[in-house]
């Protein structure tokens, strides 16, 4: 379940050699907001069933890269293939044609996304949030979608709160509903954009527990996070981002114990100092 991924050599990925199509494969991905270059040639890959964590200082482009993966941000250079498709374009008659909104929508159905600020639909109960995708996107019958939604809520431990509105739930509960909402679409890939950064410290673990369960079931996950312990324990791969590029990439334990680059060392020591200040 751990095909060697060598970001230093784009394309030199043993998963591809063994015939497994990677779920995500980025080479030289570039993206900018106006004149500000956010991604400066990102190389990256995720094989099926892998949990890949992205860490790095804020503004390093890790969240933007994650959002590129389901087309919420446009890729402006290089190549980003997700679930076998070049994100945003289809090759037809010798040219790459930009996707229509419908094609973007169809592509995103297979990718779950969890946001830092939850973004639960405020006018829906927890249950309706989870049933919303199957009903409105997949056209599932309402009663079937609701009973399935209930199962997903049970899985994240929130069946008792099914009829509450988002504002009646704690941050940790909201984030678990958000995970259930994404899972209700049966995604092939889950993207997590700093899922615990907006939570009070005592609520972080309940969300991480749900994510650990998912990883154990073999879900392919890309997780932007500041939770170093989670990355070490659950991640198959750890990627360190800085200034819009991948600085280094490796097995979490090795990378955290022996970072090869000065930039990584500086980041890790500043994160550890923060952690110690919080837990004296």
């Amino acid at each position, binding site marked *: 379940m751990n095909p060697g991924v060598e970001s230093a050599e784009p394309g030199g990925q043993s998963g591809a050699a063994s015939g497994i199509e990677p779920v995500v494969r980025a080479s030289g991905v570039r993206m900018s907001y106006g004149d500000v270059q956010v991604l400066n040639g990102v190389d990256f890959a995720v094989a099926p069933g892998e949990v890949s964590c992205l860490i790095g200082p804020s503004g390093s482009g890790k969240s933007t890269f994650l959002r590129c993966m*389901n087309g919420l941000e446009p890729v402006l250079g290089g190549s980003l293939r997700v679930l076998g498709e070049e994100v945003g374009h289809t090759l037809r008659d010798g040219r790459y044609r930009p996707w229509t909104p419908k094609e973007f*929508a169809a592509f995103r159905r297979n*990718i779950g996304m969890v*946001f830092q600020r939850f*973004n639960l639909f405020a*006018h829906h109960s927890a249950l309706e949030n989870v049933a*919303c995708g199957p009903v409105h*996107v997949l056209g599932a019958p309402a009663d079937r979608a609701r009973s399935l939604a209930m199962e997903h809520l049970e899985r994240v431990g929130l069946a008792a709160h099914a009829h509450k509105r988002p504002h009646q739930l704690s941050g940790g509960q909201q984030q678990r509903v958000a995970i259930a909402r994404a899972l209700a*679409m049966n995604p092939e890939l889950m993207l997590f954009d700093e899922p615990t950064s907006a939570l009070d410290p005592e609520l972080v673990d309940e969300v991480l527990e749900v994510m650990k369960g998912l990883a154990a079931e073999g879900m392919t996950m890309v997780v932007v996070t500041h939770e170093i312990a989670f990355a070490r324990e659950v991640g198959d791969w750890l990627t360190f981002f800085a200034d819009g590029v991948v600085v280094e990439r490796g097995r979490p334990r090795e990378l955290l114990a022996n970072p090869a680059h000065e930039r990584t060392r500086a980041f890790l020591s500043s994160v550890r100092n923060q952690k110690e200040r919080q837990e004296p």
Partner: protein
Amino acid sequence: MRTEPITGPSGTPVPVARTLHWGRWLSAAVALVIAGWLVYLVVVNPRLDWGKVAEYLFNERILSGVWVTIEISVLATALGLVLGVLVAVMRLAHNPVLSALASGYIWFFRGTPVLVQLIFWYNLAFLFPELVLKIPFTMIGLKWDTNQVMTGFTSAMLGLGLNLAAYFAETVRAGIQAVDHGQTEAAYALGMTPAKRMRVIVLPQALRIIIPPTGNEFISMLKTTSLVYVVAGHDLMTNASQIYKANNRIMELLIVASLWYMLMTAVATFLQGRLERRFGSDAVRLVRGGGLAARILPKAAA
């Protein structure tokens, strides 16, 4: 204000004295005298015949005018709401031409007096003597005489409705823009198309912001319909004016009309309060199927 006695230094309860607000009593008395005097002047005015007010209050033409006023208000508001949502969505569209057209519409209809617009629609026949609806380059189609279509009633409905649409479009735009962008991102991430995101996620939430001012628009519309009297729309004001032009009882009939306008406003205000209690809070929820009404049903005992 405290009324409970305070235990004093001697150990026994001592009552608290009442403050006398002399200034309040005086200003209230002066205001009452002035207001009462003004009302008295009108009520006892020998030139005002209250019997006529009572006589015309339930006059057949007045009652039919009240009905026409309600009809024009409801139809013009409905037209304004539907068109207003369309203009607002166009205004927010990425298409620069659609957005500019919507801005132009809003500018034009807010920039010209509604009285001018009413007279314009009523006199449309000067520009287009006939209204023709046909398939281009064929002879298949329909044709109407403009003067027969543009009665006082239809020109009133069009003029007021198109005018309201311009104002309402800005309300809808504000409502849509007030919905957090994270809701849109979450809808897209689930695989919704932009249109579905607008219909299923954004508009139901924007309703909370849109509905309260809509009640005000309708109440204001009830009274703006009185402008219709310039195009003889047979509304309350038109009929009242036709009666007083015949019998010269101008003040009496203005009082009759005002009483009816005040009653309609009171009823509309009551309905607005109920509407806001229903939709103004977060009591908006989505039910699939069953059209718009089912979509925005209040949550049953949730």
